[in-house]
């Protein structure tokens, strides 16, 4: 605990100027808490009081499961029969036990039980997973006060209201706590609320003054207190309560409350009292049930089912009317039916009653039109598809060991139809880790390493130029070559760097300044100043790693840590901070001699988002007072003195370069200050600091402003907000796939734009449309102004002539609040859709969800939201597909998501490969399903016309039962699981193929109706060909005529052949599994027929020995099968031949290329096509490279007259 004690001497609250000013507790006095809504009373450290009513509150056990052991059956059954189709089949099953049914009861009930049982098993499995997750959370351990000042571990679920707990560094808070004290003397602690609101910066919480002495285990021996506070509610940012301690009452506010699921950072430990437990805690109150999402195809499927239902109703009505008419007029003459002795079902005297009862029979008989097995097959297929996704080794992250996971299998095919991706930034695109990469000191740029963006772009450009090399004129080739060489060096230098042991936060590479060599540089003094600013101007705290003897730094923002690491590597090691001083250990040469210097900290004007700069005023060992300032370049440049602008031009150029390379930049400046000048200012400052009132902040700001002027520019830093692995490439591919990518981030506009550059969502030459809010009090005015900006921008885009022009829309949260209002949002959406990329900054979690909803509902296209933090939960739930990043941060996003992946880059494979496949699979599968059921179901109807509409089926019950279950289900499932039009590599090489999904080429009404028409045609062919062939003639040499079972069996054989051949033609990818299933199904049918015929006639009835004795020896049976099968499939074959010849789809061509091995023979053509495929994209680094090449070409053409060829300036 040595570290803790060193720290304890620090009172950080004194360091800050703007934040953290402690309001006097006595000033406000206790809240008056009475009446409803404020009934909660917590007896601190007396958990026994909470064992019984009225103080017995909910336990800390949380459950996110949908069902429990007892409610599972009724609830899950209810869910199942919520589906219209299932309800229909339930009704059918009930009716099937009455004589109304045309089938035996078991043939109706068995499939229903199977279908419902399977779905319920799936539900149970998913709920079980949730339960296991809960168990994991519930059994986390935390230290609690056992009594007598002794702390012991217990699991979270056993925690009770009133318990005193001790939470240690980097642990999550187990419940909502009242902060009593921390390892810092002044009771401050840092909390990361990533899981609550997604903000990555640390929040400061502070304990009440009175509880500060409770900073040891032993001090809790006799501690008691009483908290009266509000009832559980979901508001994260409010808390009202009173704390009664030592006969005094103190007011509590949100800054003393530590919320469950936030994390303690930078502090060794805190003590707290549990206030809200389990589902009472604010974060759980915030949890909303995830809406059940259904995919677009599934929703459309409902419509198709309605269509089929209407068809079913129509033919049932026709049947029942036909039956009633026949019964009334014809049946009295049919003496062989004994019409005088009938029951109600066939009574000619009551034709209406007979008709009505027959309607029910008919509805059941033609029930085969509605494929009961469709749902269950789809469920099975989706589960298998999900298994593929889960098992995909290429989406497995080796670092974290997390595979991709399809958490719900309902949305697999939706992945293939995504139009817009809404992405979170931190943790999703970036790792939230800063790397010091480059700097510009005194007008000279240092740092050889390149950012990932540059690297990715360079590789792209190199391959492109290589390609162009062959085609272009010699001039151009030389140019290309030169550029290539240059690029190669970049690539190589990066490669070397990888071999070195990387230092976290530091990727700088330049021998001129490393290892003390900077002393030999021309501007050594400026360089030294630069490093000092890095080492001094910050708010971080050093921490000695006792094992290695080096320091690590804990800071509010990761940038600062990166600066400090950089300074340390340059030889300026920040090693100690006291109340009034900063100690820096300076090392001037490689020899290792060090000098400890102390800088007296006079004032600190820390960073706020409004000021965008930070200044410290220090006195160095020589007594010189220095003002050291770092901040956003625009801010700093405005505050430079006349003679401080020496390096401005060069630095600006470098800053632009850095910006282009996707780096975060800050400018550094300083000035020297005279003693008198300082003391005059300081007096004013102190005075302002002690004033009390509303304008205090304003005064402080003004005074700070006075100090931060006439600065001298030193240089600039470039920090890479480290993108996650593969993000630029992934975005590039997604852009090629025609997806729109919106970034919704809680970050500042500048950061967001930087990241935009880093991810190639923005590039130089792209027209940025910034919608900003004007500062005005009147809401109306602001709104009107925003509307005006939006219309102007839309106008501008409309008037744009350049086909390569791309626009980017940047909007911040406050403006967005207006833009999302009902009357503006439509215009906003129109504008946003026209832009190639959209970046929304400083948006709240709720706004993220709102934007998602706007896109989803406004454009009607499929949206995908991806994020990693709890702040993305709203968006993830709102979007059509939610993807959670299962990174290091909490599990909220993952829990709310439909798919979870370990890194953003896996999104490419998830969408372009799996999404594309799943979409096609499901679409084709559903189409085929309708085809097959129509083809089958309608033959039943035709037969009715020949059977007096009596409800007799021509097929044996068992045939019908097995039709959907065994005989046609496996091929269609194999289609749904294994079908792939093009291989995964091709999918990734030609992401444009993905567009087939969003354009919905495979499940539009044209396609569906085509398949239905095909089904109708097949049913007609199957029925009538068979009827005519077997009409009244003997079908065997022995003279026997075809009885009903013989005809039915032949017809059924034709159906099995025709349907299975059809699916064989539909598939384009065969493995032995498909062959096995398709031909196996046909074989199964014959096998079944054989076995069924072998059974005793009391079971097989009319089908007894039918194959062996009657059909198989009759050549006409085989001939009819052949003829009907061919006739059924002929139109489909003609159709696909025609389509392939004259309107080939993308994947057809690619299949051909692959088939003829063109890609192997003609590599150049292959790459050219790949590069051409990229041309249309507006974003991604390919687009960026293309834009750059265009730019270069343009330049070249202008230069052409002069024979000299310059080496291209990469800085252009």
């Amino acid at each position, binding site marked *: 605990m040595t570290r803790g004690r060193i720290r304890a001497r620090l009172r950080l609250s004194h360091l800050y100027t703007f934040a953290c000013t402690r309001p006097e507790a006595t000033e406000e006095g206790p809240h008056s808490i009475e009446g409803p809504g404020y009934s909660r009373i917590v007896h601190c450290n007396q958990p026994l009081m909470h064992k019984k009513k009225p103080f017995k509150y909910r336990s800390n056990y949380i459950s996110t499961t949908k069902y429990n052991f007892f409610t599972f059956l009724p609830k899950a059954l209810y869910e199942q029969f919520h589906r219209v189709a299932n309800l229909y089949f339930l009704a059918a099953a009930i009716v099937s036990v009455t004589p109304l049914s*045309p089938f035996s009861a078991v043939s109706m009930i068995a499939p229903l039980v199977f279908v419902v049982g399977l779905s319920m098993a799936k539900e149970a499995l998913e709920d079980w997973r949730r339960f296991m997750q809960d168990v994991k959370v519930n059994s986390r351990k935390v230290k609690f006060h056992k009594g007598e000042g002794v702390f012991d571990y217990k699991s979270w679920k056993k925690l009770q209201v009133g318990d005193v707990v001790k939470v240690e560094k980097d642990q999550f808070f187990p419940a909502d706590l009242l902060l009593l004290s921390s390892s810092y003397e002044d009771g401050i602690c840092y909390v990361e609320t990533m899981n609550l609101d997604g903000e990555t910066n640390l929040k400061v919480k502070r304990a009440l003054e009175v509880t500060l002495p409770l900073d040891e285990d032993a001090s809790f021996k006799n501690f008691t207190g009483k908290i009266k506070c509000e009832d559980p509610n979901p508001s994260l940012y409010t808390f009202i309560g009173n704390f009664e301690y030592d006969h005094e009452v103190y007011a509590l506010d949100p800054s003393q409350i530590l919320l469950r699921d936030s994390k303690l950072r930078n502090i060794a430990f805190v003590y707290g009292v549990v206030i809200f437990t389990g589902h009472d805690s604010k974060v759980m109150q915030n949890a909303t049930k995830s809406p059940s999402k259904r995919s677009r195809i599934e929703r459309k499927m409902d419509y198709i089912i309605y269509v089929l239902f209407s068809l079913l109703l129509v033919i049932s009505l026709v049947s029942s009317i036909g039956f009633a008419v026949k019964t009334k007029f014809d049946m009295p*003459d*049919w*003496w062989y039916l*004994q019409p005088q*002795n009938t029951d109600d079902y066939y009574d000619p005297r009551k034709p209406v009653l007979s008709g009505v009862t027959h309607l029910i029979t008919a509805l059941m008989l033609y029930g085969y039109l509605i494929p009961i097995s469709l749902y269950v097959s789809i469920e099975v297929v989706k589960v298998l598809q999900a298994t593929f996704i889960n098992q995909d080794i290429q989406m497995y992250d080796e670092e974290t060991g997390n595979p991709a996971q399809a958490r719900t299998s309902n949305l697999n095919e939706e992945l293939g139809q995504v139009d817009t991706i809404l992405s979170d930034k931190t943790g999703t695109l970036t790792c939230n880790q800063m790397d010091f990469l480059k700097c510009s000191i005194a007008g000279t740029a240092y740092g050889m390493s390149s950012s990932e963006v540059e690297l990715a772009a360079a590789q792209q450009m190199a391959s492109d130029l290589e390609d162009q090399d062959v085609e272009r004129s010699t001039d151009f080739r030389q140019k290309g070559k030169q550029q290539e060489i240059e690029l190669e060096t970049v690539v190589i230098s990066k490669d070397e760097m990888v071999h070195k042991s990387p230092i976290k936060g530091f990727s700088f590479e330049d021998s001129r300044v490393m290892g003390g060599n900077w002393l030999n540089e021309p501007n050594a003094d400026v360089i030294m100043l630069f490093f000092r600013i890095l080492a001094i101007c910050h708010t971080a705290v050093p921490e000695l790693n006792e094992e290695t003897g080096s320091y690590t730094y804990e800071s509010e923002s990761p940038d600062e840590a990166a600066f400090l690491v950089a300074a340390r590597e340059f030889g300026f090691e920040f090693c100690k901070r006291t109340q009034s001083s900063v100690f820096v250990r300076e090392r001037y040469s490689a020899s290792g001699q060090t000098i400890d210097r102390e800088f007296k900290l006079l004032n600190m004007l820390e960073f706020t988002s409004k000021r965008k700069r930070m200044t410290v005023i220090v006195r160095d060992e020589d007594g010189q007072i220095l003002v050291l300032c770092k901040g956003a370049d625009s801010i700093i440049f405005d505050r430079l003195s006349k003679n401080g602008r020496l390096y401005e031009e060069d630095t600006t150029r470098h800053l632009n370069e850095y910006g282009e390379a996707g780096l975060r930049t800050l400018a550094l400046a300083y000035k020297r200050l005279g003693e008198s000048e300082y003391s005059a200012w300081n007096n004013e400052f102190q005075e302002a600091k002690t004033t009390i009132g509303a304008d205090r902040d304003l005064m402080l700001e003004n005074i700070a402003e006075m100090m931060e002027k006439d600065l001298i520019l030193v240089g600039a830093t470039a920090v890479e907000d480290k993108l996650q692995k593969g993000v630029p490439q992934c975005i590039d591919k997604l852009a090629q796939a025609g997806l729109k990518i919106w970034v919704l981030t809680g970050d500042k506009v500048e950061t967001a734009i930087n990241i935009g550059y880093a991810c190639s969502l923005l590039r130089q030459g792209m027209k940025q449309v910034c919608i900003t809010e004007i500062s005005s009090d009147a809401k109306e005015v602001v709104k009107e102004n925003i509307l005006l900006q939006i219309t102007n921008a839309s106008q501008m885009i409309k008037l744009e002539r350049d086909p390569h022009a791309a626009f980017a829309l940047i909007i911040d949260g406050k403006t967005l609040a207006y833009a999302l209002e009902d009357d503006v949002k439509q215009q906003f959406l129109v504008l946003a859709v026209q832009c190639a990329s959209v970046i929304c900054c400083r948006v709240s979690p709720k706004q993220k969800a709102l934007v998602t909803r706007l896109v989803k509902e406004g454009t009607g296209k499929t949206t995908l939201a991806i994020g990693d933090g709890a702040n993305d939960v709203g968006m993830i739930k709102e979007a059509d597909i939610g993807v959670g990043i299962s990174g290091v941060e909490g599990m909220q996003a993952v829990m709310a998501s439909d798919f979870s992946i370990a890194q953003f880059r896996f999104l490419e494979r998830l969408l372009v490969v799996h999404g594309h496949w799943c979409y096609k699979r499901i679409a084709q599968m559903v189409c085929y399903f309708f085809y097959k059921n129509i083809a089958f179901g309608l033959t039943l109807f035709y*037969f009715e016309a*020949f*059977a*007096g509409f*009596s*409800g*007799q089926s*021509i097929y044996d019950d068992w045939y019908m039962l097995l039709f959907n279950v065994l005989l046609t289900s496996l091929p269609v499932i194999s289609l749904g699981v294994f079908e792939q039009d093009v291989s995964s590599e091709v999918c990734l090489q*030609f992401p444009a193929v993905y567009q087939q999904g969003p354009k919905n080429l495979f499940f539009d009404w044209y396609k569906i109706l085509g398949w239905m028409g095909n089904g109708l045609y097949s049913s007609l062919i199957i029925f009538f060909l068979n009827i*005519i062939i077997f*009409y*009244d*003639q*003997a*079908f*065997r*040499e*022995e*003279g*026997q*005529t*075809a*009885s*009903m*079972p*013989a*005809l*039915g069996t032949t017809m059924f054989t034709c159906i099995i052949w025709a349907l299975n051949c059809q699916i064989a033609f539909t598939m384009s990818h065969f493995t032995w599994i498909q062959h096995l299933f398709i031909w196996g199904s046909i074989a199964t049918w014959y096998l079944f027929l054989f076995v069924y015929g072998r059974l005793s006639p009391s079971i097989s009835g009319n089908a*007894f*020995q039918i194959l062996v004795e*009657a059909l198989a020896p009759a*050549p*006409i049976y085989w*001939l009819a099968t*052949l*003829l009907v099968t*061919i*006739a059924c499939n*002929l139109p489909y*074959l003609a159709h696909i*031949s*025609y389509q392939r*010849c*004259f309107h*080939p789809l*993308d994947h057809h061509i*690619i299949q*051909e290329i692959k*088939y003829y091995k063109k890609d192997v023979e003609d590599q150049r053509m292959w790459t050219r*096509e790949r590069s*051409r*495929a990229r*041309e*249309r994209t507006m974003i991604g680094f390919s687009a960026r490279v293309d834009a750059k090449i265009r730019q270069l070409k343009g330049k070249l053409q202008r230069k052409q007259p002069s024979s000299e060829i310059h080496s291209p300036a990469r800085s252009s």
Partner: protein
Amino acid sequence: MGVIFIPVGLVTLRASHCVIIHSMVVEIVDRYDIDCVPEPSRMDKVSYIQDDSIPKNCSRFMKVHKYMKAPIYIYYQLDNYYQNHRRYVKSRSDKQLLDGQKYHDTSSCQPVESNNNRPIVPCGLIAWSLFNDTFKFIREGAELIVNRKNIAWKSDRGHKFGKNIYPFNFQNGTLIGGGKLNPEIPLSDQEDLIVWMRTSALPSFRKLYGRIEEDLDVDDVVVVNLMNNYNTYSFGGKKKLVLSTSSWLGGKNDFLGHACVFVGCSSLSLAIIFMLLHVKYRRPYGDMSYLPWNRKSFSG
């Protein structure tokens, strides 16, 4: 792609060839339901047929127009007779047919289940409405021998109709349906019944009556003495007598041949059309200009 049509077409054409060449079936059809009712009764055929006192003898002449090689199959054909009606199809008890009175649960036989509280064997509408016209064939004064054995499926005789089950209490009710059964003969040998109980799929059907195992020459005249017992007059159904030879494909089946020719021809012509189109508008395989990014009309 067009290539696939060629084998398909050839196979079907080959099949059709076989069908047409080999199905040289001779068939004589004679409708007798009207002509066998005496002129005076034609106004009210139903009461004629229901009147047991009137003899139902009738003679028909059938002229053989083409040489018929034995065996010649004799069929009776009924039209507009719904043997496939659900009420009718269900009204039987397979268990009773096999086990006789030992099997009691004959509820499926409604409404012909029992009479005078005694069960009926065989029960059900199908058996009750057994066809009972009989035919005798005479050529040149000599009776042609009609083989009425083995007209039913062997499996039916062997496994579905009991060997020791005799008709019982059959056609004793107030309502008399069709033919009666000789109570001395076990069900497994009542081949007329067995054939009849194989219900037909369509309302117009033929059922095998027997075989003539002698050849018939051209211009032979066959005199048919028949008993016109069965009532089809109530519902206006036709009755026909059919004599037919058979081939390896069974009876006369012109349609099958035509269908095969049609399908074969259409697939061959499709093959030719696609070949021609392919030659004329040749699209090189893997032509990149069809890819979306190369298409001019591509938008978005």
